[in-house]
């Protein structure tokens, strides 16, 4: 046999993939020497559909970009629209929005921890984590009336207020979560059979993570200290005291550590939000239906990393363009590369370690390079410089 390589296709339907996507792995013996991915199975054309809906209908549609981080997408979108409209959202509205943000992070990280345990065959942990995740789901249902797509955001604030009773109830359930979390932290970082499967798998060095533009917990696990919640503060994060968790492990173990500790930080933040919750309105009373011409970019730290929405308006009731860059898009290339050098059995956990969400990510691409029509290709360097200049001018952030 010797040096012969074999290509193994995985997907679109495969037990380890929760959503349709396709990967091709070049295998030499047990070792992976090349990996490629192909996305696009989940592409529904939502950005185009947004152009045919008004700003409030878009909210409903954008919530359904992804069912796990639904609140991230709507928050990111309403922030952009509020920025164009120059709306001042009331403090209580911002706090409630942030509260749902953090609860969402909690449920998403619990979900991920369960799935990661499942991918390495540790089903007991999977079942335990998902049972405790139901506590978070019940809190979310209590606040918003829905388990998954909360529909709590509206342009200019939130749609539902929190009663004193609910506040006390949530504070009560946090204690249970804290107790369970201690147990998961111990399992995630000390259980020998679990560690043996995740240590040294899916290596991604800090330098390479920067080059590949990794974001979120994936980047933080490679020692990259990035977090939009701190770097470009939005909603109520400016009033909160929290740490950005990083790890120098650079492998799947690091990603487990980062996420588990982030759950602890989220619990802390929820506690702060609920104790500091200011009185007042929850939303701006009158929001114009027509949005003046302009554009805005909004950044948001979704559970999976930095989410970016670009909204351009033209003075009508409908947006002219809505562009979504979901965190998985940024991480997917890096994750595919990080698998190279691992064994076949490590594929599921290495891919799952970025917490992929293809429904956020999927897109189709049409490559146009017609010089006669005056189209040109922007190089990476030009794009980067443009972005750096834009942020310096508009947001006062220096890179």
């Amino acid at each position, binding site marked *: 046999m010797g040096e012969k390589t074999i290509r193994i296709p995985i997907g679109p339907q*495969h037990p380890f993939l*929760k*959503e349709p996507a396709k990967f091709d792995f070049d295998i030499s013996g047990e070792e992976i020497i090349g990996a490629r991915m192909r996305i696009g*199975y989940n592409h*529904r054309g939502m950005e185009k559909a947004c152009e045919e809906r008004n700003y409030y209908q878009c909210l409903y549609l954008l919530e359904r970009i992804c069912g796990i981080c639904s609140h991230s997408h709507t928050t990111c979108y309403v922030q952009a629209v509020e920025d164009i409209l120059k709306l001042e959202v009331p403090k209580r509205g911002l706090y409630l929005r942030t509260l749902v943000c953090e609860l969402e992070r909690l449920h998403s990280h619990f*979900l991920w921890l369960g799935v990661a345990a499942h991918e390495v065959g540790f089903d007991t942990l999977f079942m335990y984590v998902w049972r405790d995740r*139901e506590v978070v789901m019940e809190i979310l249902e209590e606040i918003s009336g829905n388990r*998954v797509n909360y529909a709590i955001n509206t342009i200019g604030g939130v749609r539902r207020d929190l009663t004193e009773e609910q506040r006390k109830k949530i504070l009560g359930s946090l204690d249970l979560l804290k107790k369970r979390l201690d147990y998961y932290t111990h399992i995630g970082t000390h259980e020998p059979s679990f560690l043996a499967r995740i240590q040294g798998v899916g290596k991604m060095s800090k330098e390479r993570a920067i080059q590949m533009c990794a974001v979120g917990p994936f980047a933080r696990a490679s020692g990259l200290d990035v977090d939009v919640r701190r770097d470009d503060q939005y909603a109520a994060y400016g009033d909160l005291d929290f740490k950005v968790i990083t790890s120098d492990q650079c492998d799947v173990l690091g990603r487990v550590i980062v996420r588990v500790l982030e759950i602890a930080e989220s619990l802390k933040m929820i506690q702060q939000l609920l104790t500091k919750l200011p009185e007042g309105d929850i939303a701006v009373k009158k929001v114009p239906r027509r949005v003046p011409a302009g554009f805005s970019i909004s950044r948001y730290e979704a559970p999976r990393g930095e989410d970016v929405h670009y909204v351009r308006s033209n003075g009508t009731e409908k947006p002219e363009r809505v562009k979504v860059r979901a965190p998985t898009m940024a991480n997917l290339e890096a994750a595919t590369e990080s698998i190279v050098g691992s064994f076949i059995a490590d594929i599921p956990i290495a891919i799952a370690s970025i917490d992929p969400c293809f429904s956020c990510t999927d897109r*189709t691409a049409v490559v146009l390079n017609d010089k006669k029509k005056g189209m040109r290709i922007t190089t990476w360097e030009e794009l980067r410089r443009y972005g750096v200049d834009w942020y310096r001018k508009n947001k006062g952030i220096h890179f």
Partner: protein
Amino acid sequence: MLKRLVKWARVKSPWILHFNSGACNACDIEILAALMPHYDLERFGILLKASPRHADVLICSGPVTKQVAKRLKRIYDQMPEPKFVVAVGACACSGGAFRGCYNVMEGVDQVIPVSAYVPGCPVKPEAIIDGVAKLLGKLQQSAA
């Protein structure tokens, strides 16, 4: 006799395959949540299988994107007879929020025959359990 045995086995222990045909993940995590200890769909003998060749029931979420339509048909064809399809979620039933998008087929029944529809956006685990239990009730009544 053998027929009765087969029917008994089918109703008491249906194996399911879950396929996401372009859904937003919300229904998918609710399907998983229904299988987890809190709701425990497994008490009906339902087991999530990985391969279409082992499955009796295909639980399909999502509005079926054009990319995935052919693959969905293929997965359905690989399942052994008799087979049943449960469309989970508003978009799997009719296109839901994605109706009118240029890349979706507006419902699972555009591609493969569907036995049960469970509407909701997203579907609650209770509704999924109700839908599956109703399907099992139908199977019990039908003369196998």
